[in-house]
């Protein structure tokens, strides 16, 4: 019990600190930039549960993110429930999508799962572009509700919500990593056939990982309609999500919960700063090059490099 209490306290503390810092700067733009970084912490962590822990690469983060966003959007356009309900709904539909894709492809080689996720994003986008309720290709606008009492600005409220979600996601990843479940996932990643022969129910664990990963990505997407207010398919299905949610854990480090956080903070902040100076395409290009560089030269990521430096200094 003590083992879980300490990280939870740290997470809550970090959230409160973040809120305080941004409030003090008084800069409204900070809410938006911070929101994006926190969103990426959730997405990167979610990706890593399936990618880094289990060894299955998901190229279609946008599909799950969009599922969460569009579930929330449909709810906004119809019954307009409170945000927590939308978040839960977004997570559940995206989780189901993960379960479905997993069930169809995870009994085959990992490669087929990855290809299916890549194609999935294209297909979902096709569906959405043909869907009149959400405005088809042109999209639709939503109006933000009033923020809950302690908050005066809805942007600030969204920031707080995303901070809580980020803390929850990271806590979940921390818990998985240190549990028997996490060890099973690592066994699958290291050698799936051996894991199966050692009693690990590989299919069941893989399905858990895809469902949980999808759920978290949907959860990250649910507040998106209120964040952007104009929901168009091109921005929801942006390639940014696929690349970043993959690059951040790869650059930060894939074997631990800390890696995606480090990657998201480093890469996310860099991108937020860069968007004002360089074009978004050049920004993406740099991400791509850095990603390939890390994959080739530093597969352990920043966390791994730091670990090696520390052990070298110890000697």
């Amino acid at each position: 019990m003590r083992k879980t209490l300490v990280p939870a306290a740290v997470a809550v503390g970090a959230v409160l600190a973040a809120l305080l810092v941004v409030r003090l700067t008084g800069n409204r733009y900070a809410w938006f930039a911070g929101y994006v970084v926190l969103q990426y912490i959730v997405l990167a962590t979610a990706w890593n549960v399936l990618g880094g822990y289990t060894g299955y690469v998901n190229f279609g983060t946008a599909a799950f993110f969009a599922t969460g966003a569009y579930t929330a959007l449909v709810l906004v356009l119809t019954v307009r429930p409170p945000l927590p309900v939308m978040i839960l709904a977004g997570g559940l539909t995206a989780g189901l999508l993960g379960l479905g894709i997993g069930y169809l492809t995870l009994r085959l080689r990992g490669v087929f799962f990855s290809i299916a996720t890549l194609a999935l994003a294209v297909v979902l986008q096709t569906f959405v572009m043909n869907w009149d309720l959400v405005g088809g290709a042109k999209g639709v606008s939503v109006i933000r509700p009033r923020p809950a009492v302690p908050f005066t600005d809805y942007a600030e409220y969204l920031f707080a919500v995303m901070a809580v979600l980020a803390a929850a996601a990271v806590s979940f990843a921390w818990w998985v990593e240190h549990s028997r479940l996490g060890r099973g996932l690592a066994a699958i990643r290291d050698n799936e056939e051996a894991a199966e022969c050692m009693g690990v129910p590989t299919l069941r664990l893989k399905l858990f990982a895809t469902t949980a990963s999808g759920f978290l990505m949907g959860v990250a997407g649910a507040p998106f309609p209120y964040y952007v207010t104009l929901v168009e398919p091109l921005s929801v299905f942006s390639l940014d999500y696929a690349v970043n949610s993959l690059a951040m854990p790869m650059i930060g480090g894939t074997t631990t919960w800390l890696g995606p956080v480090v990657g998201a903070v480093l890469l996310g902040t860099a991108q937020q700063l860069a968007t004002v100076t360089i074009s978004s395409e050049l920004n993406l290009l740099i991400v791509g090059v850095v990603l390939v560089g890390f994959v080739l030269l530093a597969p352990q990521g920043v966390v791994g490099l730091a670990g090696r430096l520390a052990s070298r200094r110890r000697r």
Partner: protein
Amino acid sequence: MLSMELLANALVAGLLLGGFYAAVSLGISVSFGLLDVVNIAHPVFVVLGSYAAYATNRFLGLDPILTGLLFMPAFYGLGVAVYRVYHAGFERTGEESLRGLVFFFGLLFIVEVSLLLAYGVDYRLVEAGYIGESIRLGGIGIALRLLLPCLAGVALTAALHLFLSRTFYGRAIKAVSQDGLALRLMGANPVGVKTIAFGLAVASASLAGALLILIGPVEPSLGREYIGRVFAVVVLGGMGSIGGTLAASAILGVAESLTSTFSGPTWAPAVSFGILLVVLAVRPAGLLGR
């Protein structure tokens, strides 16, 4: 009311499209089907070929198919370079699964964004004498801009099939997918053979790209739309089966054409995905696969 003429036209257009899809899928059929290298960047190499054809067409007035053929050596070199990096970085250490995939995804991304930076999001097309023309065959109109890519695709497929079954290196490529050790005993170096094969696969992208821009306008993100198609074709046709690739391309082309005609063109990208999922669920070995 189902019009026979509409149906016939859709079928023919589908078959023609199928021939073209074969041209695009051959590269994956070789690299994934035979070499087990999951080059998901292949479609973006095809788009790269399209832009090469566009540039030479725009500034030099060259025919796209000619450009496609002329650039093949350059693309071959690109393929060799990419494979060397992939092999040194991943195959040798046995890390192909996770990191190899990410590597190719990174490549896909880098090329797409580079094209975006160079040419922007606008659609580009080529001008050639035969583009607007069509011939009539028994009451059905066949557009030349669809017919030529189809014929080129079929020709490329036939050429590859002959190469794989008649030449020494071709047979070595087929062998390396089954037994690298036996190959070594025969005096051929498996890595060298794989490098050549991968180079050829990327070289085919040059011609496929020229055909692509003949069929319709291109823009940088078009590659991603083709990933689903290409893998659907290779999986449906059976890994490593060149004949299977052609058959599956025809099936996909017809399915898309019928969907396009009767449900609307915006649904076309979903067809390949549907086929892919069904095949994976029902018969992952594909039609003619091992």
